[in-house]
């Protein structure tokens, strides 16, 4: 059944791409479009968004993870990120972190109301955080000891230990009403956000209308309709004039659509190849999967690959230019270490690194070897992802001239999982929360799952990451996050341990109606689609 489905979706892709080609020839008279789409076309009364997502199959309950990125729409959060990813007050008016970093005292505004008319109090905030700790969803507040309302507008969030990344929970966790919370809350979200839920046809569409009681600036666009369709259907909907915002894959972004403008939004939706860091000594994960790879455990191999790859060529050739080179996992974020960037595409430098590391081609087969071990390994990628396939194949091609042979194999994730600790894997991550950096590189994170799958371990990096995580606030943590990447002597990026070869960051491509002003989008995380809504309450319809 699974294979059937894959065929289906691929075939659907082909057909719709074809249709795209067909209809990019002279535009049809609009009357024909209207036949299929009565009363379409955006206005400040209503816009239709086709964002190809499944973010809310389980409803709109922030304690289960709704609103992790993008806008929570129906709820509001204590803080929010602006377009430069700086924190701003939203429901909160101020917050202080105690010197030991364990108590976050947040004061909230007194004039906020839930959409049922009842005021938002510190009691609701405390309830939300405590509930998130119990719900067992996609938001992680396990560091929270308890949340207590100390006055109607003050709440104390007491942590088990300091955690600089906890501020991300203040940004992502929408406040739910204590009085109206139940197991069914996710389907009847009552909140203090800019919009109210009108109707949710599961698997089809979501309709939201402006919340007139919203304490902030009431959005100009009165009604939002989200079509819950796949990327190809999103493109078709935009093409037919039915959607005013559509997220499309990079491959379709080269098309043009009448009266729509392409937004090509920077993201940390990165792709990179993960190297098993340790040699294979027969050790296994708790599930019995082999750990380590004798070839990639050699620093010279990892560095040579990093220098040998031409990332710009990958961006232009595979992503149609909709992307940027990645030298680390956090490109463009405030904690990116710019000094970790390298000049790549240097075949000679790569060869030199290999030679200095003791690798040489003695038998003349074009592949270097060391102590009789040829520089050869397997690169795994999820077979359903055509971009990763192209990246893996291109990288293999690019490193062939330096004498390294990479055998590229596509598999399903469940086949990759047992192999990913002993083979090179083409992964993609990317988050606005630096917790991800910790889990990618801390030796303690390596537990036989996706966290630090390569069993990277460097005690110096571990201690810097611990300092970053334990810092009382993000500003202080940033220095440590940067140092972990590269501090002049050590780091997990190329000049240091070169634990990964990061390749590219994808741009997220959206078609947006020329009448719609969506402001400045943030640098987006891994998800393509919903994150564009982060500032949706500020969107303006500029035509009449």
């Amino acid at each position, binding site marked *: 059944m699974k294979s059937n*489905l894959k*065929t289906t979706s691929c075939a659907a892709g082909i057909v719709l791409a074809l*249709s795209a080609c067909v209809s990019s020839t002279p535009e049809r008279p609009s009357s024909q479009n209207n036949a299929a789409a009565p009363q379409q076309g955006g206005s400040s009364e209503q816009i239709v968004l086709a964002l190809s997502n499944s973010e809310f199959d389980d409803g709109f309950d922030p304690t289960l993870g709704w609103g992790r990125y993008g806008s929570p729409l129906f709820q509001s959060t204590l803080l929010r990120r602006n377009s430069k990813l700086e924190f701003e007050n939203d429901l909160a008016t101020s917050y202080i972190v105690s010197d030991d970093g364990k108590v976050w005292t947040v004061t909230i505004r007194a004039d906020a109301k839930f959409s049922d008319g009842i005021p938002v109090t510190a009691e609701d905030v405390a309830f939300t955080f405590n509930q998130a700790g119990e719900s067992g969803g996609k938001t992680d507040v396990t560091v929270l000891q308890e949340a207590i309302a100390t006055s109607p507008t003050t709440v104390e969030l007491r942590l088990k230990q300091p955690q600089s990344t906890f501020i991300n929970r203040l940004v992502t966790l929408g406040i739910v009403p204590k009085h109206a919370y139940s197991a069914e809350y996710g389907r009847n979200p009552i909140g203090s956000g800019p919009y109210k839920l009108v109707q949710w046809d599961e698997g089809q569409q979501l309709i939201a209308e402006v919340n007139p009681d919203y304490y902030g600036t009431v959005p100009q666009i009165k009604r939002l309709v989200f079509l819950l369709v796949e990327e190809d259907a999103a493109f078709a909907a935009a093409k037919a004039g039915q959607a005013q915002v559509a997220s499309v894959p990079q491959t379709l972004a080269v098309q043009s659509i009448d009266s729509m403008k392409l937004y090509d939004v920077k993201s940390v939706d990165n792709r990179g190849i993960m190297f098993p860091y340790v040699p294979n000594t027969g050790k296994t994960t708790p599930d019995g999967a082999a750990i380590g790879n004798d070839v990639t455990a050699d620093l010279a191999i990892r560095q040579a690959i990093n220098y040998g790859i031409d990332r710009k060529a990958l961006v232009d050739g595979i992503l149609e230019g909709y992307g940027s080179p990645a030298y680390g996992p956090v490109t463009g974020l405030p904690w990116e270490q710019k000094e970790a960037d390298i000049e790549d595409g240097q075949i000679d430098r790569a060869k030199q690194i290999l030679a200095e590391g003791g690798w040489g081609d003695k038998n003349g087969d074009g592949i270097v070897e060391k102590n009789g071990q040829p520089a050869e390994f397997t690169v795994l990628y999820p077979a359903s992802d055509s971009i990763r396939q192209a990246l893996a194949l291109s990288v293999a091609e690019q490193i062939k001239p330096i004498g390294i042979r990479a055998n590229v194999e596509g598999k399903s994730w469940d086949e990759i999982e047992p192999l990913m600790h002993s083979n090179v894997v083409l992964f993609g991550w990317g988050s606005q929360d630096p917790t991800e950096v910790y889990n990618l590189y801390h030796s303690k994170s390596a537990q036989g799952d996706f966290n630090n799958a390569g069993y990277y371990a460097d005690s110096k990096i571990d201690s810097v990451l611990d300092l970053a995580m334990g810092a009382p606030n993000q500003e202080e943590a940033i220095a440590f996050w940067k140092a972990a990447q590269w501090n002049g002597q050590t780091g997990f990026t190329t000049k240091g341990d070169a634990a990964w070869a990061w390749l590219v960051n994808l741009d997220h491509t959206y078609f947006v109606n020329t009448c719609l002003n969506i402001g400045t989008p943030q640098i987006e995380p891994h998800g393509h689609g919903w994150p564009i809504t982060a500032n949706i309450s500020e969107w303006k319809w500029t035509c009449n």
Partner: protein
Amino acid sequence: MQLGIAAFMLRKLLRLALLLIAVAIFSFVLISLSPIDPIDAYVGADMLQISPEQRDIIAQRWGLDQPMMTRFILWLRQLASGNLGTSIIFNQPVSTVIGSRFQTSLQMLAIAWLISGALGLAMGVVAGARAGSWLDRAIRFYAYTLAASPTFWVALLLLLVFSVSLKITPICCATPPGVLTRDVTVWQRLHHLILPAATLSLIGVANIALHTRQKLIEVLNSDYVLFARAQGESLVGIIRHHGLRNIILPALTLQFASLSELFGGSVLAEQVFSYPGLGKATVEAALRSDVPLLVGIVFFSALFVYTGNLIADLTYQIVDPRIRIGKSS
């Protein structure tokens, strides 16, 4: 006679119970052994932001921290009290999910079923009556081609022609975007289910048409038809008085047996047309390892198909007096 039917039903119910128990065990065990980790599938790309502690909380919420046997027994106990559990991906009782999704699918399935039955029978009769003619060849060609075509391929072709090129049918969904449920007209609903229903009917006719044709040819070559012809009966008369009664039985059997194919076909057709019915929910449940929902759907579909076959069994005795239950014994 009354006693006969009661005994018949009792036997059928007993078999149903056994079937459902077998289905429950097999599907539960198979899905539990699936290599897809339900927590990974649930968390998705945010995996690296979820600590092991949070994973434990998620596992507890779904009872995944228990061994499979314990989970199975707990599940059976729940089932006995009529509770199918809670869907992981929809965070809603499984019965609610199945109920609402099936309602959406039902209209489509019903239309496809009726059309394919009626059309298939008609085509089969025409082909059988004119066996060897160009009309027969055309119908057979159509039936063989369609019987060999994958559902999703036919669905894509229809989508390409009618939605993308001609723009006379919608591209997706069961209702027009942005329209509140209470404002959706019957015509709009029909408009949205034309293509998925057409896909299933186009394919569904093949089987019935071919079988009906074969049976009719058999009938037309029989002695009693020869006798009727000798008496001067016309072809139409022969089909009406001798043919239909004989071919209706296999046609009915096939028609009810096709419920399972229809159900399977709807999984693919709904996927192509983004039609939010039970078929689409099945795909999501399977790909994201939502054990309670998938087992619930398997259970439901077993019941659905079994009921179809049971109805077929019961209609035999109305159609054909020779196999009236309880009469012979």
